[in-house]
């Protein structure tokens, strides 16, 4: 058993739901007890989809367990077919139904429904959401790819008519982090390269569309966590090469363009020449001096973390002080990336481990998921969200991709806005004791009297690093040193406290004075 406070991923059948909900003309019959319908709200509330996920839940109860849950499944599947008339169905079990071993695949087959039924076996006690999505997509692709043998030359609707190379965009799902906008951005980029899109899948595709997936010349794997398995099978089966660079960030987008150009045999020069992102200039503009060396901690799914680390390091000149992922399937890739920055990758799906690491590192910016947003909020550290799991705010009304050149613009804004920058940073540092110019004072133009708390005594509002065995050592602060620490702006105070305590421990100082504080400052710099 694993003690879990929050979970980064849902169970694997939620992954299957993300595929079913992204697609059209597909219906999912899920053998599940009452309560599992909660997953509908992820789509209708968090993503604000205006339709119900195409899922029928059998809703078995305790009293059915002694009777015939298999019969219940068959009735539900039959009724779902008749009501929704999908092109194809997927059937499977949630965690509880897995235990009663009813074999939804066999039961559905026995019904002899007039549409293809793809059975899913998603082991709930071993696997999680992204794996479930990848497995579901793979089984659907396997079931349908190559089924449509009509020649594309004779098909007037075929994109091939234009004589341009054709690709599939694979991986975008429902409940993805900015998937919809990424597809639009990358489709536009491919169009400028002279490449047409044969099929986007699973988002917006029907089972019938999947029958034509083999017609493309190559596959673009936008989200390896979801499309990797299917794309590797397509490569083996239909000799479709894969483009695997994830185009997040200016550098990665340029590499993506080059990789596509090479695979598709098109010219990339004009696209690379225009590379219409403001990020490079904004990062080089003098104001961004304040970004240089900011210490960042990065956590999320593997692809977004790897991309974010590169952007942070190469495109914003941040210092990557820690990174990690909950995608255990991609642990090796993330470890390799971490090595580049000389840090240890944190591979965990335990939120408490991540919280502890963040509080130990005291970074100046956290790039993470909605979970890390909570952690950062509690620790008083600025944060930007870069990866699923998501929240309603991660589905903005405006066009807001992460991928491509526009995605790089979005990332620059999203990461930089939470930070205190420029002259503001200096003034906060210089006039820390101005009564209405500090982090506890409300805005003076709002004409409210902010309650001033006496400096040294006001220990309640200080956000202490979580107690670890290390920080519980005997180092104490004198009142004067504590007072001096409070003159340091809040956004670096945590780091200063940690550095000073480390310095004191290393030098056998038991009581930190003002002198110790400045000795530590000189020792660590900045």
């Amino acid at each position, binding site marked *: 058993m694993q003690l879990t406070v929050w*979970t980064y991923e849902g169970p694997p059948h939620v992954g299957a739901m993300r595929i079913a909900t992204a697609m059209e003309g597909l219906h999912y019959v899920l053998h599940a007890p009452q309560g599992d*319908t909660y997953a509908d709200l992820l789509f209708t509330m968090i993503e604000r989809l205006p339709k119900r996920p195409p899922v029928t839940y059998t809703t078995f109860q305790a009293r*059915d367990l002694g009777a015939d849950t298999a*019969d219940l499944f068959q009735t539900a599947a039959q009724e779902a077919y008749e009501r929704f008339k999908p092109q194809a169905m997927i059937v499977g079990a949630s965690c*509880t139904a897995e235990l009663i071993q009813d074999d939804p695949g066999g039961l559905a087959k026995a019904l002899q429904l007039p549409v293809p039924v793809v059975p899913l076996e998603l082991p709930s006690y071993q696997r999680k959401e992204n794996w479930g999505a990848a497995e579901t997509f793979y089984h659907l692709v396997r079931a349908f790819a190559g089924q449509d043998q009509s020649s594309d030359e004779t098909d007037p609707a075929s994109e091939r008519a234009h004589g341009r190379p054709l690709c599939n965009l694979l991986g975008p799902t429902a409940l993805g982090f900015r998937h919809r906008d990424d597809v639009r951005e990358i489709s536009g980029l491919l169009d400028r390269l002279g490449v047409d899109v044969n099929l986007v899948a699973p988002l917006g595709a029907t089972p019938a569309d999947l029958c034509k997936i083999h017609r493309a010349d190559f596959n673009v794997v936008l989200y390896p966590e979801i499309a990797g398995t299917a794309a590797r099978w397509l490569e083996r089966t239909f000799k479709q090469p894969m483009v695997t660079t994830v185009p997040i960030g200016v550098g990665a987008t340029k590499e993506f363009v080059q990789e596509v150009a090479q695979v598709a045999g098109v010219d990339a020069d004009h696209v690379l020449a225009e590379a219409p992102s403001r990020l490079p200039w904004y990062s080089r503009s003098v104001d961004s001096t304040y970004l240089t060396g900011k210490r960042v901690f990065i956590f999320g799914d593997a692809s977004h973390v790897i991309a974010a680390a590169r952007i942070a390091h190469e495109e914003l000149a941040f210092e990557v002080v820690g990174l990690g992922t909950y995608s255990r399937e991609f642990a090796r890739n993330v470890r390799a990336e971490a090595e580049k920055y000389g840090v240890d990758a944190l591979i965990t799906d335990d939120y408490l481990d991540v919280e502890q690491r963040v509080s130990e590192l005291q970074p100046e910016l956290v790039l993470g998921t909605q979970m890390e947003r909570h952690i950062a909020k509690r620790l008083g550290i600025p944060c930007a969200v870069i990866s699923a799991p998501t929240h309603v705010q991660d589905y903005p009304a405006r066009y807001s991709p992460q991928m491509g050149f526009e995605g790089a613009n979005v990332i620059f804004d999203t990461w930089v806005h939470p930070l205190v920058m420029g002259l503001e940073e200096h003034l906060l540092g210089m006039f820390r004791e101005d009564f209405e110019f500090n982090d506890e004072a409300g805005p003076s133009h709002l004409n409210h009297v902010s309650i001033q708390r006496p400096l040294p005594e006001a220990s309640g509002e200080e956000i202490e690093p979580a107690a670890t065995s290390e920080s519980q050592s005997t180092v104490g602060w004198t009142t004067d040193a504590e007072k001096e620490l409070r003159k340091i702006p809040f956004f670096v105070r945590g780091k200063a406290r940690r550095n000073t305590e480390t310095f004191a421990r290393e030098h056998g100082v038991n009581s930190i004075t003002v002198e110790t504080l400045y000795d530590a400052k000189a020792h660590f710099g900045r």
Partner: protein
Amino acid sequence: MMPSPCRESRQSVVVQDESVADAQSTHRSILRERGQREVFCGLTGIVWLHRKIQDAFFLVVGSRTCAHLIQSAAGVMIFAEPRFATAIIEERDLAGLADANEELDKTVAQLLDRRPDIRLLFLVGSCPSEVIKLDLTRAAQRLSKTYAPQVRVLSYSGSGIETTFTQGEDACLASLVPELPEAGAERSLLVVGALADVVEDQFTRLFGALGVGPLHYLPSRDSQSLPAVGPNTHYLLAQPFLNDTARALEERGAKRLAAPFPLGAEGTTQWLKAAADAWDIDDAHFQDVTKPGRNRSSRALERYRDQLSGKKIFFFPDSQLEIPIARFLHKELGMHLTEVGTPFLQRQHLERELSQLPEDVQLSEGQDVERQLDRCRLESPDLVVCGLGLANPLEAEGLTTKWAIELVFSPIHGYEQAADLAELFARPLLRKESLEV
């Protein structure tokens, strides 16, 4: 129990409800359905219970689905480390129950080490733990011995195969009843069902002014001050979903004061009156004490009556609060009830509610969500009360909806909240009227 072949049970069955004694309701037809249920399971109750009982911790013994459910239902409401967690069953726990018990003990040790402030630990059963027959009652006894007197360990089931949404609170409170100390000879009043603290304080003032008491609440705000119960305890249900808790209290000798629920001004008055009568409080005094509340709520409700009167409302089943709320919306605000669905119709406790409903309302129990959606579209009501999975899709179809979950997560009981409750229904209609995009 009759075996229920599903082909039969999935059909809708219309029955004449004869269990309701009241003459008005005797011939009311109730539609009973079995099919897909679009409701939460009992685990969801943890979302409010863990805030109510401040030194209690809820450990779900379940799957990743359970953990994901509670976190999705609780969503962004929780910023601190919550007083709940899930012991996620893994592949190796399924190999043998001995191992599962050992694993559970280890997990509890880990938890109590991390949270030494816990005084009461609930082991909460889930669908998977029920199916693998992991006996949490015995586990709780075993662990209680280990951690007594520091920590008391209890267990209940919040599984979807046994409980629907608010029934989780029922199961939790029922598990507390055997733990309550024995009450003495003095007559006392126990108010049963989790209420917002502010509402509890209002009721405490009212009962105090009436001279009804001593007064206690179940659940109490912490596990160290559990109310006593015994043959001289009279209890008033504050929530309509507390079937098992009521039964457990009666086993301890407590007597239920039959009343409608304190939703809306009239409901509140009738509810208070039931206690006042049991305490032989003079009616003039009762009128005096309740007058300010009655007057304020009637003034506050006035402004919503114009907005809601004559509007058609349709309830999907959710929290079992549907019938008392429908009664309030109909009687005090003049709304027209079409179908009122409830996951489970607890006739005995709802007797005084059902008798106040109009003749033409269609009651339904259980759910086949597709069929119910068909009926809802056919009715085209002005307002649909439904769960979070259905609300946006129905809005996209042009219907106006009220999320049912807000009725559980907001203070709605008592005089001072009657207008807040009305406002929850008026606002979606106001929004629909105001928007010009």
